[in-house]
């Protein structure tokens, strides 16, 4: 079965990560180029997998060690996984190219290893079909994220990493309790089988298990009370890593929550969990937007904005309707592109002008017009101006939200996005119409990436049909669990 190449998606980063210490002799430059090559390779494979999945329409199932699913661990690369693995790969490639230029802190081989492990973890979380395997990949992502946050070796970085570690640790322990409870009552770890047997679990254990799993993943997916670590982690991490955090690390957590949520549909108190999640998601959007209003540091401001957009995705996924999930996935794609653009731009300015405080951005239009233009496109898109990509997904989410009956939730989110408009437009005004400065030379590679992403934003904005069709397929992949169970070749083993 030629599907087996898909397992390379996991194998390649793992092997190349452990291969890094061996090539330490090539020197700093060599490692960085090596990193870029690996990520390029990964993008190639991901693109090939994406093309195959979307052309044949059937998901690729990779059985570890040839064992049939309930016994063996399987990778289930459906429409969603194919799309998102490609996004993970592409964003990692861009960040790799960016870090070639931007990474100055010395132990570069450690950086490369952690970078690859982070990418591996995220890809694994998205592709896996087994909940404990999900836990393991989540831990890999988490640990590499802790390390990378502390990578700058400054006081703040260490503090942020500590916070992330403690909250992440608590979260993952409770996630493990949830997994244990589910395994205890169902006897299986495979997602497809869980979905089949979820109906006949005894209600209290199912309720507690589901709640704990969702709680564990919610810490990773930055929902309201649990996301206190996120702004610090985003701010303190190196600029390249923040791009990866916001573009796909959070999304992996979100996908996992959505996947497990919709798997356990048959559980009695499913709707109460949904209502709780919708409430938490709306609060995330509102609190994060309010927090971003008077920020002095642009990177922290965009971190809050990213948290609020992620909250909006969680709101969409937790609506419990097909339209909601499709809109959520569409917003995931758009958000990834826009936030990658914004964080890359801010990181670039941060390094070139030293620091990402608002003062450096005064009159950026005169100093670095290309970056300023890209940042403007990014912020306009983030606000939700028509002819840019987030407008389409935001409209879809809000209409799905009202259709699902959460009119008050939608009203609050709209109020929050008014606040978002205010601070983004203040940012644009600061860039173009305030402050002076003479024109500086801007790097070619970075400007090329920024302009490519900006062009992508505008193209999706003007012609969103293609991406919307992808999002619909990916959404249905998560939503109708029946199809998911049919796709996974379950071996008939006694419970």
């Amino acid at each position: 079965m030629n599907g087996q190449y898909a397992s390379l998606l996991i194998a390649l980063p793992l092997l190349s990560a452990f291969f890094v210490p061996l090539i330490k002799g090539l020197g700093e430059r060599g490692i960085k180029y090596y990193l870029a090559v690996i990520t390029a390779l990964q993008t190639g494979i991901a693109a090939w997998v994406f093309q195959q999945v979307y052309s044949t329409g059937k998901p690729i199932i990779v059985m570890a060690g040839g064992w049939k699913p309930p016994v063996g661990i399987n990778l289930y690369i459906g429409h969603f996984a194919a799309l998102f693995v490609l996004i993970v790969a592409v964003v990692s490639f861009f960040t790799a190219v960016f870090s070639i230029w931007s990474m100055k802190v010395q132990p570069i081989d450690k950086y490369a290893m952690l970078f690859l492990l982070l990418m591996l973890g995220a890809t694994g979380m998205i592709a896996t079909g087994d909940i404990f395997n999900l836990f393991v990949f989540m831990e890999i992502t988490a640990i590499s994220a802790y390390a990378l946050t502390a990578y700058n070796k400054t006081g703040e970085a260490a503090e942020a990493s500590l916070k992330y570690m403690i909250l992440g640790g608590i979260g993952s322990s409770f996630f493990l309790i949830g997994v244990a409870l589910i395994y205890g009552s169902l006897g299986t770890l495979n997602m497809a089988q869980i979905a089949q047997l979820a109906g006949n679990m005894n209600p209290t254990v199912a309720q507690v298990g589901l709640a704990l799993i969702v709680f564990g993943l919610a810490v990773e997916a930055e929902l309201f009370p649990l996301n206190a670590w996120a702004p610090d982690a985003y701010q303190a991490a190196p600029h390249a890593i923040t791009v990866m955090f916001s573009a796909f690390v959070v999304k992996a957590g979100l996908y996992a929550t959505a996947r497990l949520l919709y798997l356990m549909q048959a559980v009695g108190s499913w709707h109460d969990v949904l209502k709780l999640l919708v409430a938490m998601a709306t609060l995330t959007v509102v609190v994060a937007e309010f927090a971003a209003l008077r920020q002095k540091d642009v990177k922290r401001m965009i971190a809050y904005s990213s948290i609020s957009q992620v909250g909006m995705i969680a709101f969409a996924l937790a609506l419990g309707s097909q339209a909601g999930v499709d809109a959520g996935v569409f917003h995931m794609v758009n958000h990834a592109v826009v936030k990658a653009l914004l964080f890359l731009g801010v990181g670039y300015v941060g390094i070139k002008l030293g620091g990402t405080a608002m003062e450096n951005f005064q009159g950026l239009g005169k100093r670095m017009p290309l970056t300023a233009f890209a940042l403007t496109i990014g912020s306009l898109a983030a606000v939700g101006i028509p002819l840019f990509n987030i407008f389409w997904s935001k409209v879809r989410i809000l209409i799905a939200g009202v259709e699902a009956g959460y009119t008050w939730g939608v009203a609050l989110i709209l109020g929050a996005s008014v606040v978002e408009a205010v601070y983004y437009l203040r940012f644009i005004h600061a860039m173009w119409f305030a402050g002076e400065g003479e024109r500086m030379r801007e790097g070619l590679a970075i400007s090329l990436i920024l302009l490519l992403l900006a062009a992508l934003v505008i193209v999706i904005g003007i012609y969103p049909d293609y991406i919307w069709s992808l999002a619909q397929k990916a959404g249905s992949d998560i939503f109708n669990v029946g199809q998911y169970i049919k796709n996974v070749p379950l071996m008939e083993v006694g419970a």
Partner: protein
Amino acid sequence: MISVYYFGAISLILIGLYAVLVKKNVLKMLIGLSIMETGVNLLLVSIGYISGRSAPILSEGIGPNQAVDPIPQALVLTAIVIGVATTAMALSVAIILYGKYGTLNVEEIRRLRG
């Protein structure tokens, strides 16, 4: 069938949580964290225990239905490894923190806020 081990595991988890929530010193918090992890591992193992059966080492005397359910034990192995990794990482970060901030009191480590 709620066996007595569940109570032990859950109490361990709560003790760990208590330590993280109340203790001011970073190291004590980390110790609390690892206690919680051991509690979770204990819960995981105890779920797989079927009373009156021996350890899941397949030898001639013990077949699949004489031994206890092996899968949770396998899971616990990986969970322990992960616990070790996180605690090691946390301690190294704590060392940097002490170097930079000169204190381990959680109240003072608050440069990133608002």
